[in-house]
């Protein structure tokens, strides 16, 4: 086992620390900066969609090229969209639930003193930060950020600045940033797997692993394979851009009246590589949420999770199936139409384990003694939005209905519910739940509940109408709706814009609560929620070596709620003897 000595200087303890708890908090802070950046970008996008000709005060100064006089140009809209998607998916939905919470909690939950490779762990955070900074640099170079979306479809992303502003230096920085990010996640995933498998404390059999740890472990396995494909794909893209290769660029392209000096590449190759990563990435974003909700619901329902083994089996099934479905992003891409049917079947099959897990959550709430706190409200909200997002997947999993809905706002609604909002609700639930352990202080529950109600109603107001837009044929990634048939939909867009601005503003409430509680919140006891897992056996926040020199000995599983425990408690701690 790694021996952890307490470092002396402030810099070594709080900044360049190898302590997984510091690194976990650093990841969460990075995600916090990233999520507010991404949200600000979405505000600008939504404002533009509602009122395209109204100048945004101050934006003209920030982006004199992209938004002269504060009026957002079409290319700047696409740049905002690209950066919003990239920041949210990579630097929020991957960083917070997986790297952030996972780093802080996984070693605690398995009873380890630290991660298996603390230095690699530290490196993975700093490499992630580097990737984020490289991405942000794209705002300030040449013609600005790239505009080819977070999916960066080639050849638009591969041919350079002939394809439009931002497709020069901005797009190169994007590809470099994502390549760096892949390296960081590979390092992190290895660490998660090694720690879970090798550093479990006495008595912590795999069957006794908490659900969140199971989710992080499986997520790490998915990440290891997924990022290992995206990394070389990004390197090939960079080579196409700077070294004159043609991996993704076919011959005979004429862009801006210029014949391109490329031949022999395949645009579909990029799509295959990207989605082979991209679909598992959806599960990298959402599976930690599954784990968090499965761990939080029993705590506040005061009863065990229904079917714990079924839950884990379903997680493993999802992980396996997640590699067989990427082609459903490509039904209409020009690949062989026969393969569409092949990709459709596993896509529909993957809904079975997801549906089982959802029913397990709902069944867990049945007959519970529910304690409604900010954390449990967000966990319940997670179930609701996940159901909503999951069901709209039925339409997109079938090639025949995808013919109509592909490329419309229906898709935007679907993935925002299922991976955006659901994953964010998982992050919120996790934050309210583990904040006492993270910072040794309690968050304000009143503010937390207001945050939940307004956000819950807000996200439905934003994203439910997007289904209606999609059914009406409203095409996504449009910076303005000049088409005749889209004109009648503009009032609905304005409604969504107002809802988005409002819901975004509500998040400032969360930020305020977070900052104030961090500094002034009441001191947290060791186990404020009466939970069973190991992190609640130690102090809040835990000491440097997690368990104060002792070694936790696990005697029970994580699911012992609604039992008769010592001292009249209705639960048994995993390390009950301590």
């Amino acid at each position, binding site marked *: 086992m790694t021996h952890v000595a307490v470092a002396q200087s402030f810099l070594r303890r709080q900044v360049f620390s190898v302590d997984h708890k510091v690194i976990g908090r650093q990841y969460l802070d990075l995600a916090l900066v990233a999520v507010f950046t991404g949200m600000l970008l979405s505000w600008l996008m939504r404002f533009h969609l509602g009122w395209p000709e109204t100048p945004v005060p101050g934006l003209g100064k920030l982006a004199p090229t992209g938004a*002269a006089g504060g*009026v957002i*140009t079409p290319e700047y809209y696409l740049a905002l969209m690209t950066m919003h998607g990239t920041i949210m998916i990579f630097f929020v939905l991957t960083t917070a639930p997986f790297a952030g919470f996972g780093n802080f909690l996984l070693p605690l939950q398995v009873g380890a003193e630290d991660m298996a490779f603390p230095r690699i762990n530290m490196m993975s955070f700093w490499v992630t930060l580097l990737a984020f900074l490289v991405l942000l640099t794209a705002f300030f170079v040449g013609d600005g950020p790239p505009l080819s979306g977070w999916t960066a479809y080639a050849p638009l992303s591969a041919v350079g600045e002939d394809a439009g*502003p931002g497709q020069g230096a901005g797009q190169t920085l994007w590809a470099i940033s994502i390549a760096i990010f892949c390296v960081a996640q590979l390092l992190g995933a290895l660490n998660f797997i090694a720690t879970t498998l090798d550093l479990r404390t006495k008595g912590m059999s795999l069957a006794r692993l908490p659900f969140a740890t199971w989710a992080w472990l499986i997520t790490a396995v998915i990440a290891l394979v997924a990022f290992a494909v995206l990394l070389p794909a990004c390197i090939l893209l960079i080579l196409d851009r700077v070294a004159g290769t043609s991996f993704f660029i076919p011959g005979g392209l004429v862009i801006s009246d*210029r014949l391109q000096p490329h031949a022999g590449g395949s645009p579909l190759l990029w799509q295959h590589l990207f989605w082979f990563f991209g679909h598992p990435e959806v599960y990298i974003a959402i599976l930690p949420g599954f784990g968090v909700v499965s761990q939080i619901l029993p705590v506040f329902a005061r009863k065990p999770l229904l079917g714990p083994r079924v839950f884990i089996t379903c997680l493993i099934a999802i992980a396996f199936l997640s590699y067989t479905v990427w082609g459903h992003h490509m039904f209409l891409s020009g690949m062989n139409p026969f393969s569409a049917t092949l990709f459709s079947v596993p896509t529909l099959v993957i809904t079975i384990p997801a549906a089982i897990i959802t029913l397990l959550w709902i069944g867990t709430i049945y007959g519970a003694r529910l304690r409604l706190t900010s954390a449990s409200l967000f966990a319940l909200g997670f179930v609701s939005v996940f159901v909503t997002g999951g069901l709209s997947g039925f339409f997109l999993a079938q090639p025949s209905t995808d013919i109509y809905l592909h490329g419309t706002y229906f898709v935007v609604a679907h993935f925002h519910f299922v991976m955006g909002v659901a994953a964010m609700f998982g992050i919120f639930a996790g934050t309210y739940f583990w904040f006492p352990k993270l910072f040794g202080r309690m968050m304000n529950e009143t503010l937390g509940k207001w945050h939940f109600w307004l956000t819950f109603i807000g996200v439905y107001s934003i994203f439910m109408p997007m289904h209606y837009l999609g059914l009406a044929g409203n095409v996504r990634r449009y910076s303005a709706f000049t088409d005749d048939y889209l004109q009648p939909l503009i009032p609905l867009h304005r409604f969504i814009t107002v809802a988005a601005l409002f819901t975004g503003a509500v998040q400032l409430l969360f930020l305020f609560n977070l900052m104030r509680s961090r500094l002034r919140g009441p001191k947290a006891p060791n186990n404020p929620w009466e939970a069973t897992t190991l992190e609640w056996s130690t102090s809040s926040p835990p000491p440097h070596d997690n368990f104060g020199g002792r070694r936790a000995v696990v005697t029970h599983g994580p699911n012992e709620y609604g039992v008769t425990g010592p001292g009249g408690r209705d639960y048994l701690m995993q390390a009950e003897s301590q």
Partner: protein
Amino acid sequence: MITRYLAALALASVGGGAAGPPHRPPAAAGTISGKVTYTGTLPKLRPIDMSKEPNCVTQHPTPVMTQDAVTGPANSVRYVVVYIAAGDQGAPPATDTVRYDQKGCLYIPHVATMQVHQPLEIFNDDPHSHNIHPLARVNAEWNKSQPKGAPPIRTSWDQPEFIAVKCNVHPWMHGYFVVLATPHSAVTDSTGSFTLTGLPPGTYTVTAWHERFGTKSQEVTIAGSETKTVNFVLTARPY
């Protein structure tokens, strides 16, 4: 010899007067005017299909024809740039602002001439977005959208170049920024006529350039305040 001497004098006086108001013709200023015509077979003129932008279709009661080979009466050619290619080094720089408009999904004028560093203003007069993409090779290329109601784009060019300009949003929109070292340039009108004024005595190379019919040059000597006629005949090809 005497002309050379006079030209040098005129140049010297021009040099001294560079700080004065723009385009004040020097004391003894000549004029070159003429016509540009073509021989050969013209490419077919075709109506521009603007159907994707109904705003623009309604602005043109009769279909607009392609502008890459516009001709007039008596085989005259429109949109030919005639300019002093050599002989007027040191002429006072043009400082007035060149205006370039996007209206009815056309560039107006189709061909605009300007001197290096001369200010250029690009306006969007249409009720929708445009995109201006000067396909510069020598100068720095740029590509900007100009939404409805956005302020004019103010710019200038550093090097002489014939820059094709396209609108990425409306592929049929096509024009030229002809950036020249000289302040003396003109674009032929619908009768193929042009006039270059304010030329001090001297010997000049006058060049006519057309986007499809190529380039022709002639030497012209201006002796005083006279008007010399120079005509060009360009060769047209059908494809």
